[in-house]
């Protein structure tokens, strides 16, 4: 039995028994190669669940908005390792109770899906730990190296051209599981920290602020990159910030559910002389 069939049956069982009130998974999108998030609430509906190599989106972002878990019930969710790391971060930041999250773990390798065994985020701890040592994604590394080899002013021109496309749609923010602030910094007007206009300054401000707010929290799911309607390669910025967090603080986002946030934790033996 393939993983898709196996998980459909498990989802149906959990729903029928009342163990979960909802399963968030992937369903058929509007074209053959698209998958969309589906919200399954009955055993009958679980037939809609699909699982294949097109299922790349990080669905953990749906756990926080509009108080989904506030009734104390459990929710099932299909997650790859990046999504499991997201759950760890959400737990560490007190946004989610990990006991309420039932994970249908899977990974995509060479165009095939394979199941990952475990039910709660903590079950996947050894897997997540092993990811830390494999380093950041190799395909990204190649693009990141290309940027690294540019001079600072060449890099600045590159990003200026990319950010010039930004239309402040905030798709990057909305799709990111880590961007859950009820009032984002751009929505604050006393004072208006970040301009809402999409001129050069406004675009730089937004994208850089978001990259900083994600430093040490980004799980490289690529959601922001795929969501951006104007094709800004956002994963490259966040990748670089992740690299900095790893090199400077040995910090791998989402490693555990009690991981301390890298930019908000201070140690007595910190080599820096100031908090910045």
């Amino acid at each position, binding site marked *: 039995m393939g993983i898709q069939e196996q998980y459909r049956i498990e989802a149906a069982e959990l729903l029928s028994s009342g163990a979960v009130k909802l399963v968030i998974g992937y369903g058929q999108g509007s074209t053959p190669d698209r998958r969309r998030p589906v919200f399954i609430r009955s055993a009958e509906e679980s037939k809609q669940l699909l699982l294949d190599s097109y299922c790349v989106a990080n669905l953990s972002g749906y756990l926080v908005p509009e108080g989904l878990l506030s009734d104390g019930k459990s929710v099932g969710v299909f997650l790859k390792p990046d999504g499991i790391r997201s759950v760890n971060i959400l737990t560490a930041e007190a946004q989610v109770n990990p006991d309420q999250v039932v994970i249908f773990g899977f990974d995509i390798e060479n165009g095939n899906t394979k199941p990952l065994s475990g039910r709660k985020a903590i079950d996947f701890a050894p897997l997540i730990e092993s990811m830390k040592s494999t380093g950041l994604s190799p395909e990204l590394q190649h693009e990141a190296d290309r940027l690294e080899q540019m001079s600072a002013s060449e890099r600045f021109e590159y990003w200026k*051209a990319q950010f010039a496309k930004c239309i402040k749609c905030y798709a990057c923010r909305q799709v990111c599981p880590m961007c859950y602030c009820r009032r984002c910094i751009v929505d604050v007007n006393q004072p208006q920290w970040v301009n809402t206009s999409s001129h050069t300054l406004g675009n730089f401000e937004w994208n850089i602020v978001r990259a900083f707010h994600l430093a040490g929290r980004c799980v490289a799911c690529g959601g922001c990159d795929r969501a951006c309607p104007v094709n800004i390669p956002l994963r490259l910025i966040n990748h670089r910030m992740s690299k900095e967090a790893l090199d400077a603080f040995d910090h791998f986002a989402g490693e555990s559910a009690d991981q301390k946030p890298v930019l908000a934790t201070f140690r007595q033996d910190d080599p820096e002389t100031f908090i910045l």
Partner: protein
Amino acid sequence: MTRILLHDRLDDCLAAWRSSGFRVLAPTRRDDLTRFDEVQGAAEMALDIIMPERTIKDHFFLQTEPMIRYRIKKQEIDTEEMLPPEQKRLFFGVRPCDASGLAIDDQLFGWDYKDAYWFQRRENSVIVTIACTKADDFCMCTSVQLSPDSTKGSDVMLHPLKDGRGWQVVTLTDRGKSLVDGIASILQEDAAAAAPTASVPVKFDVDKVASWLADPASFESHLWKEVSQRCIGCGSCTFLCPTCHCFDIQDEGDTYSGIRRKNWDSCSFAMFTMHTSGHNPRNTQSTRWRQRIMHKFNYYRGKFDVNSCSGCGRCTRQCPVDMGITETLQVISNLPR
């Protein structure tokens, strides 16, 4: 016999138009994005694509537009109105859906007060549209009473020739006629047939949708929650839509000098209807999704007799979670009578 323009004479046209004072904008691929931008030659144009990722609306209703510059010294205020430049522009290779978006928005921007920013640009621009010979799964112009060769909003219509040598040229408006007269020597009479237009299957019954939306009972329907579950509330669909036109007004500056601007805004954003008191009439994504659909196919239609939708399909094509209005309208269209 019709007048045709050959592909390899296009650069001559561009030269003629530029020498009569036009800036020429066309779909072009730059920095990994296709959009309308100024081009110097036909080689820069990306005319083979279904449609550019960004719409032509961006050049008439800017994402960020300065309105007033202010300077304050003691008790004296000096203000300077910042209206758009009067530069003549020619948009070449517009898709019928994008062109119709302009005509649809003319209604709102001209409702009682005439929006100077919009109309100054409209009056100084000529739209040369190319009919579509191919479409993709997301196109739905035929579902909103438009078509791959709709002339709405266009000044000149080009029909691609079957043999691929160029286009038939049809003038639609006075502005279009004077443009084409200016390149008359570059065109030639020819009997070549036009290629068949793209086949775009109708995906929903928009009249049925409109009458369901107009029924007050539909406002409370549980359908809204069901269809919008995966919506993440970003502004992609709004900002890529040829007809969406909501905006915000922001002051950028300090108490001494600055600029009051208007910026794009979206009814999908949580803060759109947030009152200072904290009361938010639309505080769930499903209520905001309902507003989007209601506005496009009920309120706007009721006011201006036209759907606020040009059927381009960008909302679904580029939605991060594969939403967009097509699915919702199909669900409504398929409701039992």
